[in-house]
């Protein structure tokens, strides 16, 4: 059974292909279109997925869209009626979008992807998220919690999922409906803090470490959490139900102070009261989010009695909250699908059709995220020759690893391009910028001169599995599921914080990636070479892209990053390019 999952038309459009239950390929459209968070129909991503399996659209049994557009339209109508006459100006615009495009999704999908109406299926938004988390996990049965901005109506859902020889099921137990949503609260405050919605949420998470939650009491007036993990937002503070451009009202500014103007400087340690106030708002929001996620985990445990939890939805990308759920929650093990946001809906919808409707048995759980496209070393060498780029070709990979380890130990910063690119927002060693985690200047240098982004943002460490406990307060085996995908933030051991300044955040934590040789062999052998040379099996690992650009996919894009930034070297498979001294 060949099933193609599609997510599109909101943000992070993606395609995922399952062949007889095996995940063959997954990719976000942004990697091909080079438009960050591209929402357009993922024609190129779908073409790549089919090509990876050697299939054509005629070979696909089902094309599954990750949500139900008619139910979403219904929500839009009901919401505008409820808000009438407040959203009157916005209504014609919303109608133009829906009547002009979104209501015709079936024909758009057929035209764009070349499939027939008979091939098309639709899966509910949160069910797609839930399926993506459960069927990618190693669990036979689990509670599943999905939390995001909003799907059709649901903003938060609790499921019980199980698989057996006779089939699989994902049963919805409880859900919370729009407009009450922790995801939309987070987005509204992301906008309040001057960051772009659906893009800047992880900046808010990074910013929160610099603040104190002194606005928590104020936020509790905005948002109350019930005993049954329900959440109620006070409508006076928000206008997202009736506006597509503004999400908070002047009342919120009266409560928290004036909103930050996008692009206004933020400096830490705070040189001005305003920077500190924004950090404090972020910290308060983070505490509230963690508290809600914990309440949800407890509710899911009470409803299901399961010992394992799967998390998905955009809020599940909040690694700090994930860690608290794992450590303080009632579940023994927690799994987060690496593409927990809307892109993951493409995978989940395909998995739901394959395993639940199609009753195809589950295959091995997702142990790595390298599901994108790869380029052959010979093609890369030809590309570099054609462009006249000087490079060294290493036929022996061990020599390449040794040379890169030497450059890193000299505190050079480089690009690392290997194999298939990652599924999800994190670079996990296939399209990474790497540096020496011991270098005290690395964070500032990579932020300012390489990625051109805000100086307060931290970088993640990638650590060898057998050395993780030496540096980080990891709780094996509970952390074995989150750490390989960089889905959890853990404390750096206090006694070694001074040794890893480039990857230790201001609050003494790090969003760690644990590297296992069997799942990520190339990156593992590089960090192993670095350990042989330095005695430290940790490197700084961040995504290979520049500010406001998607992660690199092809060698040409990686070379473009190298050419436009201050990277010292770039490794494209077995080719090493060094920056010539100016």
């Amino acid at each position, binding site marked *: 059974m060949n099933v193609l999952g599609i997510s599109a038309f909101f943000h992070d459009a993606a395609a995922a292909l399952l062949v007889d239950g095996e995940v063959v390929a997954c990719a976000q459209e942004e990697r091909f279109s080079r438009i960050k968070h591209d929402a357009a129909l993922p024609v190129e991503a779908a073409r790549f997925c089919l090509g990876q399996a050697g299939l054509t659209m005629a070979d696909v049994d089902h094309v599954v869209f990750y949500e139900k557009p*008619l139910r979403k*339209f*219904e929500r839009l*109508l009901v919401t505008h*009626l409820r808000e009438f006459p407040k959203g009157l100006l916005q209504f014609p615009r919303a109608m133009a979008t829906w009547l002009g495009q979104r209501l015709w999704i079936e024909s758009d999908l057929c035209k764009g992807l070349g499939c027939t109406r008979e091939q*098309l299926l*639709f899966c509910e938004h949160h069910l797609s998220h839930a399926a993506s988390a459960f069927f990618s996990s190693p669990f036979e049965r689990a509670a599943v919690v999905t939390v995001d901005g909003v799907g059709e109506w649901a903003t938060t859902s609790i499921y019980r999922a199980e698989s057996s020889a006779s089939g699989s099921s994902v049963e919805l*137990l*409880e859900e919370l409906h729009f407009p009450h949503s922790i995801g939309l609260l987070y987005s509204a405050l992301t906008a309040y803090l001057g960051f772009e919605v659906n893009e800047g949420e992880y900046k808010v998470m990074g910013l929160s470490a610099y603040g104190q939650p002194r606005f928590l009491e104020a936020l509790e007036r905005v948002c109350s959490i019930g005993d049954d*993990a329900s959440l109620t937002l006070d409508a006076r503070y928000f206008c997202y139900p009736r506006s597509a451009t503004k999400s908070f009202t002047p009342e919120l500014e009266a409560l928290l102070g004036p909103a930050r103007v996008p692009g206004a400087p933020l400096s830490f340690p705070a040189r001005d009261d305003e920077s500190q106030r924004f950090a404090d708002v972020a910290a308060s929001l983070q505490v509230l989010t963690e508290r809600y996620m914990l309440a949800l985990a407890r509710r899911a445990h009470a409803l299901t009695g399961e010992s394992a939890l799967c998390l998905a939805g955009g809020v599940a990308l909040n690694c700090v909250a994930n860690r608290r759920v794992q450590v303080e929650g009632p579940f023994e093990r927690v799994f987060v699908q690496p593409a927990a946001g809307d892109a993951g809906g493409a995978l989940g919808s395909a998995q739901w059709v394959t395993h639940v409707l199609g009753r195809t048995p589950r295959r091995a759980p997702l142990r790595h995220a390298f599901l994108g496209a790869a380029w052959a070393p010979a093609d890369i060498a030809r590309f570099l020759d054609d462009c006249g780029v000087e490079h060294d070709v290493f036929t022996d990979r061990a020599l390449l690893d040794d040379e890169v380890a030497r450059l890193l130990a000299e505190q050079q910063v480089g690009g690392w391009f290997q194999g298939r690119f990652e599924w999800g927002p994190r670079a996990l060693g296939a399209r990474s910028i790497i540096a020496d985690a011991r270098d005290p200047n690395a964070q500032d240098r990579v932020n300012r001169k390489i990625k051109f982004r805000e100086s307060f943002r931290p970088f993640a460490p990638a650590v060898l599995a057998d050395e993780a406990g030496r540096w980080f307060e990891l709780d094996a085996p509970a952390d074995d599921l989150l750490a390989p995908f960089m889905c959890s933030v853990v404390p750096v051991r206090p006694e070694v914080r001074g040794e890893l300044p480039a990857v230790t955040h201001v609050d003494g934590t790090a969003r760690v990636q644990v590297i296992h040789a069997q799942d990520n062999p190339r990156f593992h052998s590089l960090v192993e070479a670095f350990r042989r040379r330095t005695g430290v099996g940790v490197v700084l690992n961040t995504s290979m892209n520049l500010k406001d650009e998607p992660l690199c996919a092809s060698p040409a894009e990686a070379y473009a990053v190298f050419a436009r930034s201050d990277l010292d070297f770039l490794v494209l498979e077995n080719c090493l390019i060094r920056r010539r001294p100016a």
Partner: protein
Amino acid sequence: MRPITPALQTARAAASPARRRRSGFVFVELCRALLQSGRWWLIPFVAVLALSAALLAAVAAVEYVAPFVYTIF
């Protein structure tokens, strides 16, 4: 949180199955979905919207229809 009872589960599955019986017309499908989800009272609203959309499309597409449409309002 809104509990999902077995009855509600069945109703929702009927209201929005993965594969709908397709009429080929979005308007008809939308009305069917609204009927099944219990929000039948939205159907007149949708009908007015659809009619307005059809009128606007007609005005945009055929120039000499416009004067007749304007007189309606």
